Protein backbone atom coordinates (compact mmCIF):
# COMPACT_ATOMS: atom_id res chain seq x y z
CA UNK A 1 0.00 0.00 0.00
CA UNK A 2 1.36 3.45 -0.88
CA UNK A 3 1.83 5.96 1.89
CA UNK A 4 1.47 9.66 1.35
CA UNK A 5 4.48 11.58 2.67
CA UNK A 6 3.20 15.10 2.01
CA UNK A 7 -0.24 16.46 1.25
CA UNK A 8 -0.68 20.11 0.34
CA UNK A 9 -4.30 21.21 0.03
CA UNK A 10 -5.38 24.58 -1.33
CA UNK A 11 -2.51 26.39 0.38
CA UNK A 12 -2.40 30.14 0.04
CA UNK A 13 0.28 32.45 1.40
CA UNK A 14 0.33 36.22 1.11
CA UNK A 15 3.10 38.51 2.34
CA UNK A 16 2.65 42.19 3.09
CA UNK A 17 5.53 44.26 1.76
CA UNK A 18 6.22 47.88 2.69
CA UNK A 19 7.00 49.94 -0.39
CA UNK A 20 9.62 52.68 -0.28
CA UNK A 21 8.62 56.28 -1.05
CA UNK A 22 10.68 56.05 -4.26
CA UNK A 23 8.82 52.98 -5.47
CA UNK A 24 5.46 54.57 -4.57
CA UNK A 25 6.36 57.60 -6.71
CA UNK A 26 7.43 55.33 -9.57
CA UNK A 27 4.19 53.36 -9.40
CA UNK A 28 2.17 56.55 -8.78
CA UNK A 29 0.41 55.06 -5.81
CA UNK A 30 -0.20 56.25 -2.26
CA UNK A 31 -0.47 52.73 -0.86
CA UNK A 32 2.37 52.14 1.62
CA UNK A 33 1.85 48.41 1.76
CA UNK A 34 1.57 45.92 -1.03
CA UNK A 35 0.27 42.38 -0.84
CA UNK A 36 2.44 39.80 -2.56
CA UNK A 37 0.71 36.49 -3.20
CA UNK A 38 3.46 33.87 -2.90
CA UNK A 39 1.28 30.76 -3.24
CA UNK A 40 -2.16 30.72 -4.85
CA UNK A 41 -4.24 27.81 -3.55
CA UNK A 42 -1.83 25.08 -4.54
CA UNK A 43 -2.49 21.34 -4.23
CA UNK A 44 0.04 18.53 -4.45
CA UNK A 45 0.73 15.11 -3.03
CA UNK A 46 4.12 13.46 -2.61
CA UNK A 47 4.28 9.69 -2.15
CA UNK A 48 6.67 8.00 0.26
CA UNK A 49 10.05 7.29 -1.33
CA UNK A 50 9.58 9.77 -4.17
CA UNK A 51 12.03 12.46 -5.21
CA UNK A 52 9.54 15.23 -6.00
CA UNK A 53 10.81 18.31 -7.76
CA UNK A 54 9.37 21.82 -7.67
CA UNK A 55 10.78 23.71 -10.61
CA UNK A 56 10.34 27.44 -11.05
CA UNK A 57 12.14 30.76 -11.47
CA UNK A 58 13.31 32.84 -8.51
CA UNK A 59 10.35 34.33 -6.64
CA UNK A 60 7.87 31.77 -7.97
CA UNK A 61 6.96 30.46 -4.49
CA UNK A 62 9.28 27.42 -4.21
CA UNK A 63 11.03 28.50 -1.01
CA UNK A 64 7.75 29.63 0.55
CA UNK A 65 6.42 26.10 0.02
CA UNK A 66 9.52 24.57 1.65
CA UNK A 67 9.35 26.98 4.60
CA UNK A 68 5.66 26.14 5.09
CA UNK A 69 6.47 22.41 5.25
CA UNK A 70 9.40 23.22 7.59
CA UNK A 71 6.93 24.81 10.11
CA UNK A 72 8.71 28.17 9.71
CA UNK A 73 5.70 29.80 8.08
CA UNK A 74 1.97 29.39 8.66
CA UNK A 75 -0.41 29.25 5.70
CA UNK A 76 -3.13 31.89 5.37
CA UNK A 77 -5.52 29.17 4.24
CA UNK A 78 -5.41 25.52 3.31
CA UNK A 79 -3.47 22.77 5.03
CA UNK A 80 -0.24 20.80 4.84
CA UNK A 81 0.23 17.31 6.30
CA UNK A 82 3.45 15.32 6.68
CA UNK A 83 2.73 11.60 7.03
CA UNK A 84 -0.75 12.56 8.24
CA UNK A 85 0.43 15.15 10.81
CA UNK A 86 -0.83 18.68 10.33
CA UNK A 87 2.08 21.10 9.98
CA UNK A 88 0.30 23.90 11.84
CA UNK A 89 -1.40 22.01 14.66
CA UNK A 90 0.95 19.07 15.18
CA UNK A 91 4.20 20.81 14.36
CA UNK A 92 6.32 18.98 16.95
CA UNK A 93 5.58 15.58 15.36
CA UNK A 94 6.34 17.05 11.93
CA UNK A 95 9.65 18.51 13.12
CA UNK A 96 10.84 15.06 14.17
CA UNK A 97 10.31 13.72 10.65
CA UNK A 98 11.85 16.45 8.56
CA UNK A 99 15.08 18.28 7.92
CA UNK A 100 16.03 20.89 5.40
CA UNK A 101 18.95 22.07 3.32
CA UNK A 102 18.55 25.61 2.05
CA UNK A 103 20.31 27.64 -0.58
CA UNK A 104 22.29 29.63 2.01
CA UNK A 105 24.42 27.37 4.19
CA UNK A 106 23.60 29.00 7.53
CA UNK A 107 26.04 28.04 10.28
CA UNK A 108 27.93 29.45 13.22
CA UNK A 109 30.79 30.52 10.99
CA UNK A 110 33.44 30.49 13.73
CA UNK A 111 32.54 26.89 14.62
CA UNK A 112 33.98 23.85 12.89
CA UNK A 113 31.76 21.47 10.91
CA UNK A 114 31.93 19.00 13.82
CA UNK A 115 30.79 21.65 16.34
CA UNK A 116 27.96 22.81 14.08
CA UNK A 117 26.76 19.29 13.35
CA UNK A 118 27.01 18.29 17.02
CA UNK A 119 24.82 21.27 17.92
CA UNK A 120 22.26 20.13 15.34
CA UNK A 121 22.46 16.51 16.55
CA UNK A 122 21.81 17.51 20.17
CA UNK A 123 18.83 19.64 19.13
CA UNK A 124 17.34 16.52 17.56
CA UNK A 125 18.04 14.51 20.74
CA UNK A 126 20.75 12.30 19.20
CA UNK A 127 23.48 10.62 21.24
CA UNK A 128 26.66 12.68 20.78
CA UNK A 129 28.97 9.65 20.33
CA UNK A 130 26.81 8.04 17.65
CA UNK A 131 26.26 11.39 15.94
CA UNK A 132 30.02 12.06 15.72
CA UNK A 133 30.61 8.73 13.94
CA UNK A 134 27.72 9.30 11.56
CA UNK A 135 28.63 12.91 10.71
CA UNK A 136 32.18 11.88 9.79
CA UNK A 137 30.86 9.14 7.51
CA UNK A 138 28.46 11.48 5.72
CA UNK A 139 31.02 14.25 5.28
CA UNK A 140 33.58 11.81 3.88
CA UNK A 141 30.96 10.39 1.52
CA UNK A 142 30.29 13.93 0.29
CA UNK A 143 33.95 14.37 -0.55
CA UNK A 144 35.02 16.57 2.38
CA UNK A 145 38.55 16.00 3.61
CA UNK A 146 38.97 14.87 7.22
CA UNK A 147 41.50 17.62 8.00
CA UNK A 148 38.79 20.23 7.40
CA UNK A 149 36.38 18.76 9.95
CA UNK A 150 37.79 20.78 12.84
CA UNK A 151 38.54 24.02 10.97
CA UNK A 152 36.23 27.05 11.29
CA UNK A 153 33.48 27.07 8.67
CA UNK A 154 34.42 30.63 7.67
CA UNK A 155 37.62 29.25 6.11
CA UNK A 156 35.72 26.84 3.88
CA UNK A 157 34.58 27.49 0.31
CA UNK A 158 30.88 27.94 -0.47
CA UNK A 159 30.79 24.45 -2.01
CA UNK A 160 32.32 22.86 1.08
CA UNK A 161 29.93 24.74 3.38
CA UNK A 162 27.00 23.54 1.31
CA UNK A 163 28.21 19.95 1.64
CA UNK A 164 28.28 20.37 5.43
CA UNK A 165 24.73 21.71 5.14
CA UNK A 166 23.72 18.56 3.26
CA UNK A 167 25.41 16.46 5.97
CA UNK A 168 23.43 18.34 8.64
CA UNK A 169 20.21 17.72 6.74
CA UNK A 170 20.80 14.00 6.55
CA UNK A 171 22.44 13.49 9.97
CA UNK A 172 19.08 13.29 11.73
CA UNK A 173 17.78 10.62 9.30
CA UNK A 174 14.69 12.57 8.26
CA UNK A 175 11.99 10.60 6.49
CA UNK A 176 11.09 13.75 4.55
CA UNK A 177 14.14 15.69 3.38
CA UNK A 178 13.51 19.21 2.11
CA UNK A 179 16.14 20.41 -0.33
CA UNK A 180 15.71 24.06 -1.20
CA UNK A 181 17.98 24.76 -4.16
CA UNK A 182 20.81 22.75 -2.58
CA UNK A 183 23.16 23.11 -5.55
CA UNK A 184 22.63 26.79 -6.43
CA UNK A 185 25.96 28.58 -6.70
CA UNK A 186 28.06 25.41 -6.49
CA UNK A 187 30.88 24.57 -8.88
CA UNK A 188 30.13 21.67 -11.27
CA UNK A 189 32.18 19.18 -9.23
CA UNK A 190 30.43 20.00 -5.92
CA UNK A 191 27.10 19.99 -7.72
CA UNK A 192 27.72 16.46 -8.99
CA UNK A 193 28.75 15.28 -5.48
CA UNK A 194 25.53 16.62 -3.94
CA UNK A 195 23.35 15.22 -6.73
CA UNK A 196 24.99 11.80 -6.42
CA UNK A 197 24.32 11.86 -2.70
CA UNK A 198 20.65 12.67 -3.24
CA UNK A 199 20.39 9.70 -5.63
CA UNK A 200 22.13 7.49 -3.07
CA UNK A 201 19.72 8.60 -0.31
CA UNK A 202 16.85 7.64 -2.52
CA UNK A 203 18.29 4.23 -3.36
CA UNK A 204 19.59 3.18 0.06
CA UNK A 205 17.30 4.87 2.58
CA UNK A 206 13.60 5.05 3.09
CA UNK A 207 13.50 8.79 2.58
CA UNK A 208 11.19 11.03 0.60
CA UNK A 209 12.79 14.10 -0.96
CA UNK A 210 11.09 17.39 -1.83
CA UNK A 211 13.56 19.25 -4.04
CA UNK A 212 13.16 22.80 -5.28
CA UNK A 213 15.42 24.01 -8.03
CA UNK A 214 15.64 26.37 -10.94
CA UNK A 215 18.15 24.06 -12.60
CA UNK A 216 16.09 22.26 -15.24
CA UNK A 217 18.66 19.54 -15.93
CA UNK A 218 18.91 18.78 -12.22
CA UNK A 219 15.15 18.40 -11.94
CA UNK A 220 15.10 16.20 -15.04
CA UNK A 221 17.87 13.90 -13.76
CA UNK A 222 16.90 13.57 -10.09
CA UNK A 223 13.14 13.70 -9.84
CA UNK A 224 10.43 11.06 -10.21
CA UNK A 225 7.82 13.77 -10.68
CA UNK A 226 8.07 17.50 -11.19
CA UNK A 227 5.66 20.33 -10.45
CA UNK A 228 6.35 23.44 -12.49
CA UNK A 229 5.45 26.49 -10.46
CA UNK A 230 5.09 30.03 -11.76
CA UNK A 231 3.76 33.11 -9.94
CA UNK A 232 2.59 30.94 -7.05
CA UNK A 233 0.60 28.51 -9.19
CA UNK A 234 1.37 24.97 -10.28
CA UNK A 235 1.12 25.09 -14.05
CA UNK A 236 1.96 21.41 -14.67
CA UNK A 237 2.71 18.29 -12.67
CA UNK A 238 3.94 15.00 -14.12
CA UNK A 239 6.99 12.79 -14.55
CA UNK A 240 9.87 14.43 -16.48
CA UNK A 241 8.98 12.32 -19.51
CA UNK A 242 5.30 13.11 -19.13
CA UNK A 243 6.02 16.83 -19.04
CA UNK A 244 8.22 16.61 -22.13
CA UNK A 245 5.49 14.75 -23.98
CA UNK A 246 3.29 17.84 -23.54
CA UNK A 247 5.56 19.72 -25.92
CA UNK A 248 6.23 18.43 -29.43
CA UNK A 249 9.92 18.33 -30.38
CA UNK A 250 11.05 20.99 -32.82
CA UNK A 251 13.56 20.56 -35.63
CA UNK A 252 14.18 17.00 -34.50
CA UNK A 253 15.82 18.18 -31.24
CA UNK A 254 14.94 16.50 -27.98
CA UNK A 255 12.40 18.44 -25.90
CA UNK A 256 13.99 19.99 -22.82
CA UNK A 257 12.41 21.12 -19.56
CA UNK A 258 13.07 24.69 -20.72
CA UNK A 259 10.88 24.07 -23.80
CA UNK A 260 8.21 22.77 -21.43
CA UNK A 261 8.43 25.87 -19.25
CA UNK A 262 8.18 28.25 -22.23
CA UNK A 263 5.25 26.31 -23.66
CA UNK A 264 3.34 26.32 -20.37
CA UNK A 265 3.99 29.88 -19.24
CA UNK A 266 4.50 31.69 -22.52
CA UNK A 267 7.87 33.10 -21.45
CA UNK A 268 11.40 31.97 -20.87
CA UNK A 269 12.88 31.23 -17.45
CA UNK A 270 15.06 34.36 -17.64
CA UNK A 271 12.05 36.55 -18.48
CA UNK A 272 10.10 35.03 -15.58
CA UNK A 273 12.97 35.73 -13.17
CA UNK A 274 13.37 39.30 -14.42
CA UNK A 275 9.63 39.92 -13.90
CA UNK A 276 9.69 38.51 -10.37
CA UNK A 277 12.72 40.59 -9.42
CA UNK A 278 11.15 43.84 -10.68
Amino acid at each position, binding site marked *: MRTTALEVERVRKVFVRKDSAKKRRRLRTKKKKEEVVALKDIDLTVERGEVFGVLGPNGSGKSTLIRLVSTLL*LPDSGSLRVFGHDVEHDSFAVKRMINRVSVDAAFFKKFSPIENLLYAARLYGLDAGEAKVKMREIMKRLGLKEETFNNPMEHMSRGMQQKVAVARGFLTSPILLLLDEPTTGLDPHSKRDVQAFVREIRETHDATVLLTTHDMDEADRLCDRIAIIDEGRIVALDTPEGLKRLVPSQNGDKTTMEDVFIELTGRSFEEAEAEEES
Partner: protein
Amino acid sequence: MSTFVREMRGAYAFVERNINLMKRYWGWEVVWLIYSLTNALAITYIGNGMGMISGQEIDTQYVVTYLLVGALIWQYLVVIFYAISEMIAWERWEGTIEYTFMAPVSRPTHLVGTTLFAIGYGIVRTLAILGIVVAFFRLNLGGANIIGTILMLLAGSVSFVGLGILAAVLPLLYPERGAQMTNAVAAILLLISGVYYPIESLPAWLQVVAKASPATYVIKGMRACLLEGRSTVELLPTALTLVGIGLGVIALGLFIFRYVERYAKRMGRLKRSG
Protein backbone atom coordinates in the same frame (compact mmCIF):
# COMPACT_ATOMS: atom_id res chain seq x y z
CA MET B 1 14.45 7.18 24.03
CA SER B 2 12.49 9.00 26.71
CA THR B 3 11.22 12.49 26.11
CA PHE B 4 13.16 13.68 29.17
CA VAL B 5 16.53 12.46 27.79
CA ARG B 6 15.79 14.04 24.41
CA GLU B 7 14.83 17.35 26.00
CA MET B 8 17.94 17.33 28.22
CA ARG B 9 20.13 16.75 25.16
CA GLY B 10 18.34 19.65 23.51
CA ALA B 11 18.96 21.89 26.53
CA TYR B 12 22.63 20.91 26.63
CA ALA B 13 22.94 21.88 22.95
CA PHE B 14 22.44 25.53 23.98
CA VAL B 15 24.88 25.29 26.91
CA GLU B 16 27.59 23.78 24.70
CA ARG B 17 26.89 26.20 21.87
CA ASN B 18 27.26 29.20 24.19
CA ILE B 19 30.50 27.84 25.68
CA ASN B 20 31.83 27.38 22.15
CA LEU B 21 30.76 30.90 21.20
CA MET B 22 32.54 32.23 24.30
CA LYS B 23 35.73 30.37 23.31
CA ARG B 24 35.59 31.61 19.72
CA TYR B 25 34.91 35.22 20.72
CA TRP B 26 37.33 35.19 23.68
CA GLY B 27 38.73 38.59 22.68
CA TRP B 28 35.28 40.09 23.07
CA GLU B 29 34.90 38.38 26.47
CA VAL B 30 38.15 39.99 27.68
CA VAL B 31 37.05 43.40 26.42
CA TRP B 32 33.66 43.05 28.08
CA LEU B 33 35.18 41.94 31.37
CA ILE B 34 37.53 44.95 31.33
CA TYR B 35 34.58 47.22 30.54
CA SER B 36 32.48 45.75 33.39
CA LEU B 37 35.38 45.90 35.83
CA THR B 38 36.27 49.52 35.06
CA ASN B 39 32.58 50.40 35.23
CA ALA B 40 32.29 48.80 38.69
CA LEU B 41 35.49 50.55 39.83
CA ALA B 42 34.35 53.94 38.50
CA ILE B 43 31.00 53.67 40.27
CA THR B 44 32.63 52.52 43.49
CA TYR B 45 35.11 55.42 43.35
CA ILE B 46 32.13 57.78 43.50
CA GLY B 47 31.58 56.44 47.04
CA ASN B 48 35.26 56.78 47.81
CA GLY B 49 35.25 60.45 46.79
CA MET B 50 31.86 61.32 48.29
CA GLY B 51 33.45 62.85 51.41
CA MET B 52 35.61 65.14 49.26
CA ILE B 53 32.67 66.10 47.03
CA SER B 54 30.35 67.02 49.91
CA GLY B 55 33.05 68.33 52.30
CA GLN B 56 31.40 66.32 55.08
CA GLU B 57 32.55 63.32 57.01
CA ILE B 58 30.82 60.18 55.79
CA ASP B 59 31.18 56.44 56.34
CA THR B 60 33.18 55.81 53.15
CA GLN B 61 33.40 52.03 53.69
CA TYR B 62 29.57 51.84 53.91
CA VAL B 63 28.96 53.99 50.80
CA VAL B 64 31.61 52.11 48.80
CA THR B 65 30.05 48.75 49.73
CA TYR B 66 26.55 50.14 49.01
CA LEU B 67 27.57 51.15 45.47
CA LEU B 68 29.67 48.03 44.91
CA VAL B 69 26.69 45.83 45.73
CA GLY B 70 24.62 47.75 43.17
CA ALA B 71 27.34 47.52 40.53
CA LEU B 72 27.90 43.78 41.05
CA ILE B 73 24.25 42.81 41.14
CA TRP B 74 23.60 44.90 38.09
CA GLN B 75 26.46 43.20 36.22
CA TYR B 76 25.07 39.79 37.15
CA LEU B 77 21.46 40.55 36.31
CA VAL B 78 22.44 42.16 33.02
CA VAL B 79 24.35 39.00 32.03
CA ILE B 80 21.27 36.87 32.73
CA PHE B 81 18.96 39.34 31.01
CA TYR B 82 21.08 39.70 27.85
CA ALA B 83 21.90 35.98 27.59
CA ILE B 84 18.18 35.21 27.44
CA SER B 85 17.12 38.15 25.32
CA GLU B 86 19.96 37.48 22.84
CA MET B 87 18.91 33.87 22.29
CA ILE B 88 17.00 35.12 19.25
CA ALA B 89 19.20 38.03 18.17
CA TRP B 90 22.40 35.97 18.04
CA GLU B 91 20.86 33.19 15.93
CA ARG B 92 19.31 35.74 13.63
CA TRP B 93 22.69 37.36 13.09
CA GLU B 94 24.45 34.04 12.42
CA GLY B 95 21.57 32.94 10.17
CA THR B 96 20.84 29.75 12.08
CA ILE B 97 17.49 30.89 13.49
CA GLU B 98 15.43 28.90 10.99
CA TYR B 99 17.32 25.69 11.78
CA THR B 100 16.88 26.11 15.53
CA PHE B 101 13.18 26.89 15.19
CA MET B 102 12.49 23.92 12.92
CA ALA B 103 14.29 21.52 15.29
CA PRO B 104 12.08 19.36 17.54
CA VAL B 105 13.03 21.19 20.71
CA SER B 106 10.41 22.94 22.85
CA ARG B 107 10.75 26.60 23.74
CA PRO B 108 10.96 25.88 27.52
CA THR B 109 13.87 23.50 26.78
CA HIS B 110 15.49 26.19 24.65
CA LEU B 111 15.11 28.50 27.63
CA VAL B 112 16.40 26.02 30.23
CA GLY B 113 19.60 25.50 28.23
CA THR B 114 20.16 29.22 27.73
CA THR B 115 19.43 29.96 31.40
CA LEU B 116 21.75 27.26 32.79
CA PHE B 117 24.62 28.73 30.82
CA ALA B 118 23.70 32.30 31.73
CA ILE B 119 23.54 31.64 35.49
CA GLY B 120 26.87 29.76 35.52
CA TYR B 121 28.56 32.38 33.36
CA GLY B 122 27.05 35.26 35.38
CA ILE B 123 28.22 33.84 38.73
CA VAL B 124 31.81 33.23 37.52
CA ARG B 125 31.99 36.70 36.01
CA THR B 126 30.51 38.45 39.05
CA LEU B 127 32.86 36.63 41.45
CA ALA B 128 35.85 37.64 39.31
CA ILE B 129 34.79 41.32 39.43
CA LEU B 130 34.00 41.09 43.16
CA GLY B 131 37.44 39.63 43.93
CA ILE B 132 39.26 42.37 42.03
CA VAL B 133 37.18 45.27 43.45
CA VAL B 134 37.38 43.99 47.05
CA ALA B 135 41.18 43.76 46.68
CA PHE B 136 41.24 47.25 45.16
CA PHE B 137 39.37 48.92 48.03
CA ARG B 138 40.47 46.48 50.78
CA LEU B 139 36.83 46.06 51.79
CA ASN B 140 35.96 44.10 54.87
CA LEU B 141 32.98 41.80 54.26
CA GLY B 142 33.55 39.89 57.50
CA GLY B 143 30.08 40.56 58.96
CA ALA B 144 28.24 39.91 55.71
CA ASN B 145 25.77 37.04 55.29
CA ILE B 146 27.21 35.38 52.15
CA ILE B 147 24.71 32.47 52.08
CA GLY B 148 21.82 34.93 52.21
CA THR B 149 23.45 36.98 49.45
CA ILE B 150 23.70 33.93 47.16
CA LEU B 151 20.11 32.98 48.00
CA MET B 152 18.86 36.44 47.01
CA LEU B 153 20.98 36.34 43.85
CA LEU B 154 19.49 33.01 42.79
CA ALA B 155 15.95 34.06 43.73
CA GLY B 156 16.42 37.25 41.69
CA SER B 157 17.72 35.24 38.72
CA VAL B 158 14.27 33.66 38.26
CA SER B 159 12.64 37.04 37.71
CA PHE B 160 15.38 38.16 35.34
CA VAL B 161 14.98 35.01 33.27
CA GLY B 162 11.30 35.97 32.88
CA LEU B 163 12.16 39.56 31.97
CA GLY B 164 14.76 38.23 29.51
CA ILE B 165 12.09 36.12 27.76
CA LEU B 166 9.84 39.15 27.50
CA ALA B 167 12.72 41.18 26.02
CA ALA B 168 13.57 38.34 23.58
CA VAL B 169 10.21 38.99 21.95
CA LEU B 170 11.57 42.28 20.53
CA PRO B 171 14.18 40.72 18.18
CA LEU B 172 11.49 38.29 17.08
CA LEU B 173 9.13 41.13 16.19
CA TYR B 174 11.70 43.55 14.78
CA PRO B 175 14.43 41.66 12.87
CA GLU B 176 16.64 44.70 12.24
CA ARG B 177 16.50 46.74 15.46
CA GLY B 178 14.92 44.42 18.02
CA ALA B 179 18.20 43.55 19.74
CA GLN B 180 19.00 47.21 20.36
CA MET B 181 15.49 47.76 21.77
CA THR B 182 16.27 45.36 24.62
CA ASN B 183 18.84 47.93 25.82
CA ALA B 184 15.96 50.31 26.56
CA VAL B 185 14.29 47.67 28.76
CA ALA B 186 17.55 47.17 30.72
CA ALA B 187 18.03 50.96 31.07
CA ILE B 188 14.52 51.41 32.51
CA LEU B 189 15.18 48.64 35.06
CA LEU B 190 18.45 50.34 36.02
CA LEU B 191 16.67 53.65 36.58
CA ILE B 192 13.78 52.41 38.67
CA SER B 193 15.25 49.53 40.69
CA GLY B 194 17.43 51.46 43.12
CA VAL B 195 20.68 50.00 41.86
CA TYR B 196 22.85 52.96 42.95
CA TYR B 197 20.45 54.93 45.19
CA PRO B 198 17.47 54.26 47.46
CA ILE B 199 14.22 54.22 45.50
CA GLU B 200 12.88 56.74 48.04
CA SER B 201 15.03 59.38 46.28
CA LEU B 202 12.94 58.95 43.10
CA PRO B 203 9.82 61.07 42.37
CA ALA B 204 6.67 59.62 43.95
CA TRP B 205 5.27 58.25 40.69
CA LEU B 206 8.54 56.50 39.85
CA GLN B 207 8.60 54.95 43.32
CA VAL B 208 5.31 53.26 42.46
CA VAL B 209 6.88 51.89 39.27
CA ALA B 210 10.01 50.84 41.22
CA LYS B 211 7.89 48.66 43.50
CA ALA B 212 6.79 46.66 40.44
CA SER B 213 10.39 45.80 39.49
CA PRO B 214 11.67 42.49 40.93
CA ALA B 215 15.21 43.92 40.81
CA THR B 216 14.26 46.42 43.54
CA TYR B 217 13.71 43.59 46.04
CA VAL B 218 16.77 41.60 44.96
CA ILE B 219 19.06 44.58 45.45
CA LYS B 220 17.43 45.57 48.74
CA GLY B 221 17.74 42.01 50.07
CA MET B 222 21.37 41.67 49.01
CA ARG B 223 22.30 44.99 50.63
CA ALA B 224 20.61 43.82 53.83
CA CYS B 225 22.80 40.67 53.74
CA LEU B 226 26.09 42.37 52.90
CA LEU B 227 25.79 45.67 54.79
CA GLU B 228 23.65 44.74 57.77
CA GLY B 229 24.40 41.02 57.99
CA ARG B 230 20.65 40.23 58.00
CA SER B 231 19.98 36.51 58.60
CA THR B 232 18.90 34.13 55.84
CA VAL B 233 15.75 33.17 57.79
CA GLU B 234 14.64 36.80 57.90
CA LEU B 235 15.10 37.09 54.12
CA LEU B 236 13.41 33.81 53.26
CA PRO B 237 9.90 35.30 52.79
CA THR B 238 11.31 37.93 50.39
CA ALA B 239 13.28 35.25 48.49
CA LEU B 240 10.22 33.00 48.19
CA THR B 241 8.07 35.93 47.05
CA LEU B 242 10.72 36.75 44.45
CA VAL B 243 10.75 33.17 43.16
CA GLY B 244 6.94 33.25 43.00
CA ILE B 245 6.96 36.54 41.07
CA GLY B 246 9.76 35.18 38.87
CA LEU B 247 7.81 32.04 37.97
CA GLY B 248 4.81 34.22 37.15
CA VAL B 249 6.95 36.44 34.90
CA ILE B 250 8.44 33.34 33.18
CA ALA B 251 4.95 31.92 32.54
CA LEU B 252 3.83 35.29 31.15
CA GLY B 253 7.02 35.54 29.08
CA LEU B 254 6.53 32.07 27.57
CA PHE B 255 2.88 32.80 26.81
CA ILE B 256 3.73 36.05 25.03
CA PHE B 257 6.74 34.48 23.30
CA ARG B 258 4.59 31.65 21.92
CA TYR B 259 2.03 34.15 20.65
CA VAL B 260 4.70 36.33 19.03
CA GLU B 261 6.48 33.28 17.52
CA ARG B 262 3.19 32.37 15.85
CA TYR B 263 2.79 35.94 14.62
CA ALA B 264 6.38 35.89 13.26
CA LYS B 265 5.62 32.65 11.40
CA ARG B 266 2.44 34.14 10.00
CA MET B 267 4.28 37.28 8.79
CA GLY B 268 7.43 35.49 7.59
CA ARG B 269 9.79 37.15 10.07
CA LEU B 270 11.84 34.12 11.10
CA LYS B 271 14.67 35.02 8.80
CA ARG B 272 18.30 35.87 9.16
CA SER B 273 19.45 39.47 9.38
CA GLY B 274 23.11 40.30 8.96
